[in-house]
């Protein structure tokens, strides 16, 4: 019995491939991701990027939908405040997501699962390290069941 359960634990750990959905702004973070590629950085393949024009395009609906459909973590990355291609977009992002991440945390979603950061087009290293960091944390937390829509089949 004891042995069995132990095995299960191991299997569970091996099988858990976290899914991370990353929203990257076209001008900085997406370009940063490109540069990470050009400079052959390395980060886990479970990170899937969606291009948005600006971090201020990311609607909380999108984040929740990702969690509903089985994402274990969500990343939102934009230009550094002050560097927004649209000059002020990410200032609004910053406020909205400050409130929204707090709200999710309050509802009981671990903060580590929703990562917001500023990554410039030049910060290939940062892009990779942020992604690795997120993945590591999410992996520690294990699969996300919260907000999950039971009807969604993966």
């Amino acid at each position, binding site marked *: 019995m004891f042995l069995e359960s132990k095995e299960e634990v191991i299997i569970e750990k091996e099988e858990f491939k976290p899914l991370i959905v990353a929203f990257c702004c076209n001008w900085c973070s997406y370009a940063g991701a490109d540069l990470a590629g050009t400079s052959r950085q390395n980060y886990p393949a479970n990170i899937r990027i969606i291009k948005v024009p600006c971090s201020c395009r990311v609607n909380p609906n999108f984040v929740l939908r990702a969690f509903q459909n089985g994402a274990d973590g969500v990343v939102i990355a934009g230009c*550094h405040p002050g560097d927004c291609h649209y000059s002020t977009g990410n200032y609004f992002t910053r406020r909205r997501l400050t409130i929204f991440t707090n709200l999710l945390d309050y509802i009981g979603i671990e903060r580590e699962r929703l990562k917001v950061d500023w990554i410039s087009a030049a910060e290939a*290293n940062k892009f990779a390290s942020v992604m690795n960091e997120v993945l590591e944390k999410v992996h520690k937390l294990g699969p996300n069941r919260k907000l999950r829509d039971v009807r969604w089949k993966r």
Partner: protein
Amino acid sequence: MEEITLKTREIAYKDLSTGKVDRVIGFAKGDFIYESNPTFISDIDELDALVWDSFCVNNLSKYLINELKDVKKIGIFLKGCDSLGFNQLVQDNKVDSDNVLVYGVPCEGMVDPNKLKKDNLLKGLIDIKRSGEKILLITKQGDKELKAKEYEYDKCINCKHPNPVVYSELLGDYITRNNNVVDDFQEIKEIEAMNSEERFDYWSKQFSKCIRCYACRNICPVCSCDKCIFENYEPGISGKGKVDSEDQFFHIIRAYHVAGRCVDCGECSRVCPEGISIDKLNRKIIKDITEIYGEYDAGLNTSKSSVLVNYELEDFDPFESIKGGK
């Protein structure tokens, strides 16, 4: 009958008869003594129906949206909390304040029939009088004096705005309420103190009670969209399925949609047939905004746009993890 009732009739008579307003929105008694209902009066002969007592809990201001499509000028009776909602409606361009005469009514707090019922005080109730922090029940079995705080609506107990923040006429004098509130956000902090598992259990239990009747939304003075995203399935954002994830989605997004605009009138929680403490979501956001962006002022004025459509260059930034760039 309370004199304030007479005042409401006087002013309504004055303004209706002089044509200053075409219609007044106020309260009339319902089937039970502990029931005062919204009423719409355009005819001075019907003014005797107007009352003002300890059960005028509803915020009438949202009715202005439709009524103003009907008539030009409206007089409306608003309490402190109502007036905040009114301002927000003006801010959202739902109501043109030029067409509204606000009769402000200072409010000592409204009495919750359900609390009376729980203590079995409704039986044989004839009338109820309010004076300061005491309520006097006049019943067939005789009179009974009660501590007001114990029988007020929860939302009234820590009322911050007993007096209207906007009005063209004030009925009665300003009221100061002695709220011996130690910490405004005590209950929020209690939830924050839990670990994330406990918090999630707490909230999913609350949310799963939801029957999606949308009473919370429809009573809310800042939920004034013509077509709510939760009544429009075309964009494929939300569905009708009664599953936890949908309920959670509804409540999170509802709270987010009123973020920075919620006037904390507590109506959402009052009307929830399942007794979900919805305001604890709104108040969490209010707490954060107050702590991060300073004094929370939704509903206090109609000039400033809400927190989330503003920014400061030096806003607090909780996100930057690994330093780099700027």
